[in-house]
């Protein structure tokens, strides 16, 4: 026989006569409540009772003996009440009512567990059915966008045979493709680009890079993009050009300034020479060719003016060359940026092309999720209905048990109202014994702590 204590939800517990008392937090075994003795706690497990208290014997210290006496009173009262119930027919009816109630309780407990299991099953199925499904988007140019989740394999390419033959390029080949930044720099500064970038440059190298596909690796979403060979070649070409332009933009401008300056001076020198010769002729005609005046820097005013003009032209050319070189540097950087941006254009276009596919996939995902949700709701509705049915049955049993016990109690109350009522004396003795025992325990504790009167 088990004793169910209010608030106690443990299983297999309960006070058993001649068995043991399972208390919350008490995990010890082998102990028990002995009739006529005290509380024997062979070893304290999780109960927060000092060992010396648990192992204290009656008649030892005054306080401890008083506590032990109190506990004995409590269990004594209980044992007395049990014996009185077993010896009465009303008590058997009460016991039957209790059993019905227990049965109702057990059924409720079982149906909850069953509902939980079935709900978990529905959840797992819904999770499985709502799992991300890999898909692949293929553009008309042959680029592919594929996704996968975890160990999923990417979706098969529906147009896997549309890759162009190797060596075909879209939009023609850049002369800078395949060149290292140093080669581009050399071509630029060496005049190869000054007179047009068409000549003297190496042939474009077709890209032969492998496609970038998602590789299943661990959990998570795997996204992969694969350009067509033409796009890969174009991308390689553009990125190579961007590298060349950036490399050139990063070069010092001094050499380029000098080159521009020399070209400007080469354009200016003939006219300067003509002016100089004309002035020389004028000075010679005037007999002033050998004139040197300190006021004019060791020359004539005309020579000084000419020299000043030439110096100013040189200065302007120098500044212009600096500005031009810097402009070219900026242009290289801009071109590098444009090439870089254009290099990623196939990828951007691929991403843009995946948008319709993503929408379709999203719609499919929504439909999938909707179906999964619908399934879950339907399944849960069934479970819920089953729960309600089981709950009703348990309530029915519980109600019968409750009615039986209520009948007994009412009958007992009626008997109690009479002058000799054994039941009343039994319950009164029970509660008085428990109260007396608790009073003894409190007095013992007070003695131990030294706070008693």
């Amino acid at each position: 026989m088990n004793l169910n204590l209010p608030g106690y939800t443990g299983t297999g517990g309960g006070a058993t006569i001649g068995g043991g008392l399972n208390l919350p937090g008490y995990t010890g075994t082998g102990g028990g409540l002995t009739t006529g003795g005290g509380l024997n706690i062979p070893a304290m497990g999780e109960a927060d009772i000092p060992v010396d208290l648990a192992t204290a014997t009656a008649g030892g210290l005054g306080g401890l003996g008083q506590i032990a006496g109190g506990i004995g009173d409590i269990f004594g009262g209980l044992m007395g009440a049990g014996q009185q119930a077993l010896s009465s027919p009303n008590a058997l009816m009460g016991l039957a009512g209790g059993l019905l109630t227990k049965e109702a309780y057990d059924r409720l407990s079982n149906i909850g567990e069953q509902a939980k299991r079935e709900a978990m099953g529905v959840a797992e199925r819904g999770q499985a059915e709502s799992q991300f499904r890999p898909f692949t988007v293929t553009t008309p140019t042959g680029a592919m966008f594929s996704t996968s989740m975890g160990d999923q394999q990417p979706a098969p390419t529906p147009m896997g045979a549309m890759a162009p033959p190797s060596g075909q390029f879209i939009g023609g080949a850049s002369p800078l493709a395949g060149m290292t930044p140093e080669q581009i720099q050399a071509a630029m500064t060496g005049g190869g680009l000054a007179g047009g970038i068409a000549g003297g440059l190496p042939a474009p190298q077709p890209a032969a890079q492998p496609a970038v596909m998602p590789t299943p690796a661990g959990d998570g979403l795997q996204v992969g993009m694969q350009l067509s060979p033409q796009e890969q070649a174009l991308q390689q070409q553009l990125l190579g050009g961007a590298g060349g332009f950036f490399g050139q933009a990063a070069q010092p401008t001094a050499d380029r300034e000098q080159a521009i300056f020399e070209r400007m001076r080469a354009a200016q020198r003939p006219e300067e020479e003509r002016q100089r010769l004309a002035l020389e002729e004028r000075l010679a005609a005037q007999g002033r060719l050998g004139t040197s005046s300190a006021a004019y820097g060791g020359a004539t005013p005309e020579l000084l003016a000419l020299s000043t003009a030439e110096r100013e032209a040189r200065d302007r050319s120098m500044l212009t060359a600096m500005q031009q070189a810097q402009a070219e540097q900026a242009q290289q950087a801009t071109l590098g940026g444009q090439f870089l941006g254009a290099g990623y254009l196939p990828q951007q276009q691929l991403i843009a092309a995946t948008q319709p596919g993503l929408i379709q996939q999203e719609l499919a995902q929504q439909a999938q999720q909707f179906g999964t949700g619908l399934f879950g709701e339907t399944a849960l509705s069934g479970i819920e209905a089953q729960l309600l049915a089981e709950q009703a049955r348990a309530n029915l049993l519980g109600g019968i048990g409750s009615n039986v016990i209520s009948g007994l109690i009412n009958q007992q109350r009626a008997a109690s109202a009479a002058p000799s009522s054994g039941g009343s004396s039994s319950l009164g003795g029970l509660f008085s014994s428990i109260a007396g025992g608790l009073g003894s325990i409190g007095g013992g504790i007070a003695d131990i702590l030294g706070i008693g009167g």
Partner: protein
Amino acid sequence: MAQQLQSINLVAPAFKGVNTEDSPLAQDPSFAEIADNAVIDKRGRIAARKGHDVITTTKTVLGTESIRAIKEFRDDGGNTKIFSVGNNKIISGTTTLVDETPASYTITADNWKMVNFNDNIYFFQRGYEPLVYDNAGGSVIKLSTVSGAAGVASAMYGNEVLAAYGRLWTADFSSNKSTIYWSDLLIGHDWSGGTSGNIDISKVWPDGYDEIVALAAHNGLLIIFGKHSIIAYQGAEAPATMSVADTVAGVGCVDRDTVQYTGTDVLFLSHTGLKSFGRTIQEKSMPISSLSGNITKDIIASLQAETEFFRSVYSPEEGFYLLTFTGQNTTFCFDVRGTVENGSYRVTRWPGTGFTSFTRLEDGTLYIGTSQGISEYTGYADNDEAYRFKYYSPSLTFGDSSRIKILKKLKPTLVGANSATVFLKWAYDFDTTFATAEFTVGTQVTGYFNESEFNSTAEFTGGELTSQRSLNATGYGTSVQVGLEADIDGSPLSLQEINVMALIGKLL
């Protein structure tokens, strides 16, 4: 039957000066074959030149050398000082010559040229650092030691210096004969700053190459005399922009010290004689006449034989331009008051004067440098010594060179020459052996009011003494040359005329 004497009157003989270029027979009697120590006087007559009166009394610093150049320093404050050079010294003073040579400054030549510029007098000679003197400093110092001096380097140690257009100009360097340097404006010691500068005219010479000899400034032009050509620059006020105005090829200047300004023209001695710059510019497209056209050969011979210095001076007071070849001790005197038919100046010759330098002072006084020091051109004696005046006419044919001329009388008319002994000479047919008749001119003392003329029995004149003598001549010939010599010793002498009385004989 006795023939009548024919009178040939030589009026104002040689008033056209010496002419050694034309044939003696065809010459005008107005020319002279010889006119030594003579000038053309104020009346157009040939006359004895003035002598020189030595001012210097103490010439220790000069020693036995001669004064090679004289210059009067003048500044705006009215300060004056006479500088001269000689005996490798810079000398000052006239009566007592003082050595002004800067300390530790060694001079081995006396070919200095001195110019006044902006209250300073500058001394330039090729290869020597220029010297400078100003009244405040009181001593001759090297140009580089002047405060603020700049650019004074051996490259500009020129032989020629010109003060014109607010600057000093120098040229004719030891190793550079085609460059002219000019100083900063009004700063004669700044040759590298301000508006100083230089010009190399080696590419300007009209005949390809020449060497600068002298510089002159005239009529807004900077005149650059080469040895064989002349270049005139205009706008020399701003040298950096001056330009060639004219060039003359084939005529140059012999020496910087022959260049003299006459106020309206620039005279210079070229290799073919004395030239005028103005006339040279005017006539450059025509045969250029020479101012010494009557003695061209003599001039050329003299300048070719010259081994020392050329010295010249222009005296508007005396009306002549003197040109001395010091190595030959000969001075040519050009009368600049007028020219003869061929455009030449009337010229006489002063031989053996010992003149080695000249300068004209601000007041017109003409100073002459000699070995005796500094003299003044004045009086009629060379430092109290007589000098010989000579006149010889060209050979005269009296209009008919085919007949014999038999001189009977010579009647010279002289002005002045108090107490002078006059030698009248004649020769026939180009003979160099002359017959001589000697006479002494009387003495005439000028009388003044309240002097003895009026209170004694002595005789006095009121002006110049005029002497006219009649001398008997001898010999005969087809051509006759008449001469007159006199020792000038204190009194002037002018030859007014010579009247020749001759018989015209038979035809030869």
